[in-house]
């Protein structure tokens, strides 16, 4: 069960401003049935001032609560003030949202932007940038904006905020590239450790085998020896009980390789030499 704040629950169970506005001055429609959430925002304006706001939402509790919160936040504000509202402001208004649900607040911000543009007669922005996530139709520009504005550092974060990467996962490499590109520019964020030199890598593999892996194998009466390292290929010899164990291939791949990948470098491949 999600850890929703009381305010989220309250705005979900008793949402404010549900419905439509006849002859609305601005309408913003975002999301789709396939995506699992969608919001239509209706605005009534007098000049620069938002007199009334109503919404219709298809989605989970946090999508409904975010929509309700958004309408409460913008009523009575002028357009310039409303435009400054970020998705974080919507989440804050609700006392916070679970991070997996942050995309619900982004939905609210996007609907607000669209409704204001519609009112001002600004041309509907063409989809700018290139679609990175085909499943949810998210572009590189949207991902860049989410990463920059919310200081996101992982693919998981990006998925939580703009949904990109939450479907077939084929775009994960592209999303990572966008994150890396932005983090490179941002000196305050810690960079990934520099690549290991060959000597460092071999030394670290040797140490990891000795310190982490050998003791575990010894418990089963087995043992392991490092034979050679060629690029990312780590050649090892299994001795003792491991040499004759039917499970040794599983041990090698599931345990030795994953341990080395975790502690040394993710691209390592472990192979047994007899």
């Amino acid at each position, binding site marked *: 069960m999600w850890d929703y704040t009381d305010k989220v629950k309250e705005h979900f169970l008793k949402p404010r401003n549900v419905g439509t506005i006849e002859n609305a001055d601005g309408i913003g429609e975002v999301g789709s049935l396939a995506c*699992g959430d969608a919001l239509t925002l209706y605005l009534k304006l007098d000049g620069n001032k938002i007199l009334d706001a109503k919404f219709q939402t298809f989605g989970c*509790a946090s999508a409904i609560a975010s929509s309700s919160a958004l309408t409460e936040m913008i009523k009575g504000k002028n357009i310039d003030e409303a435009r400054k509202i970020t998705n974080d402001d919507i989440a804050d208004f609700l006392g916070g949202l679970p991070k997996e649900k942050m995309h619900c607040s982004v939905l609210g911000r996007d609907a607000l932007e669209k409704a204001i543009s519609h009112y001002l007669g600004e041309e509907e922005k063409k989809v700018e940038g290139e679609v990175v996530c085909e499943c949810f139709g998210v572009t590189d520009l949207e991902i860049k904006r989410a990463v920059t504005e919310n200081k996101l550092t992982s693919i998981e974060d990006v998925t939580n905020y703009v949904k990109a990467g939450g479907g077939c996962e084929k775009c994960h490499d592209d999303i990572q590239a966008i994150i890396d590109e932005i983090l490179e520019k941002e000196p305050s964020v810690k960079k990934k450790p520099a690549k290991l030199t060959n000597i460092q890598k071999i030394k670290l593999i040797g140490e990891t085998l000795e310190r982490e892996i050998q003791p575990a194998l010894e418990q089963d009466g087995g043992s392991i020896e490092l034979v050679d390292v060629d690029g990312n290929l780590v050649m090892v010899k299994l001795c003792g009980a491991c040499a004759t164990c039917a499970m040794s291939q599983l041990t090698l791949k599931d345990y030795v390789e994953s341990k080395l990948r975790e502690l040394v470098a993710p691209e390592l491949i472990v192979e047994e030499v007899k």
Partner: protein
Amino acid sequence: MRVIYTDNNATTQVAKPVLDEMIPFYHELYGNPSSMHNFGGQVAKKTAEARQKIAALINADPSEIVLTSCGTESDNTAIRAAITSNPDKKHIVTTRVEHPAVKNLYEHLAKRGYRVTFVPVDRKGILDLDYLYDSLTDDTAVVSVMWANNESGVIFPIEEISREVSDRGIVFHTDAVQAVGKIDIDVKKTGIDMLSFSGHKIHAPKGIGVLYVRKGTKFSPFMIGGHQEKGRRGGTENVPSIIGLGKACELVGEQLEEENTRVRALRDKLETELLKRITDADINGVKDNRLPNTTSIGFGYVEGEAILLMMNEFGICASSGSACTSGSLEPSHVLRAMGVPFTSAHGSIRFSLSVYNTEEEVDYIIEKMPPIIERLREMSPFWKQAQEGKLKN
């Protein structure tokens, strides 16, 4: 607040008689069944009796029962044992609608050099048997097919499939976690080599699982340690849970008829009445040949998490196949494999009853659901569009 529990495919209440039998084994009869003294030996006798009851439920021999910590451990043990005893075979088969305990293990093995076939199902959740049989080759190490699906409740013809597979000399495993205790199972009538089930789905506690291993099946343990379970699963026995599971197996055996008559009638009433009162609602899965306690209903144009949380306000517990309940963004892999359209996949609710549900509870759900769906539909931008035939999606 009053709780109406219709989420029994997720977990069940430990039955009172089960709990009563377990309690002495926590404090008074705490001996280790492996000990040489009588104090431990008396416990060994009781666990042996429990093992007999567990075996009897599926008509197995007590020596064919390996006790584990959960259904997932049983599934992992079975599939890994099958591939370890067939080290030269690199092809493994399962379905697209398995529980994550099997599905994710197969995906894990796929990354480690195994060729994996995921057999599809149709719109009604029925397995494509020709696809399954056509995929089998001399290189196939194991076929694992669930007996009944946890979301749709659809039952697969395991007796037939297991015979077809084992006749070809291929190991056959079934995840029967949802089937055991709900339908009659007799392993002797099948070609099953290994079968998994779990205690907490049949009114025994969480933390106990069963793996049936047919006599003569090549086996290698997953959990290596002491001589327990005849060397097939190391680790001191979870004595109170084994005792509890024995009692639970006896009880569900006796209640099997009630499950298939009274509980089935309650389930039928629930879905018939909900479909009568709520438009744009469909059952996910074939209507006959389904577990007697399960119904998965897709409510169009509304979202599952929102439905569940409104039901929660009335104390009604159920599950959803919606994306938002799991933290993922797509509806359940089962509903997607069945091709359930997004319009209703996101709004799918699974009710799973047990012998402890009453007609009065079902009537309560029938009364509370229509206004919940109506309220959410009034909020949904798609509902009106759909009514007016204007929906683009």
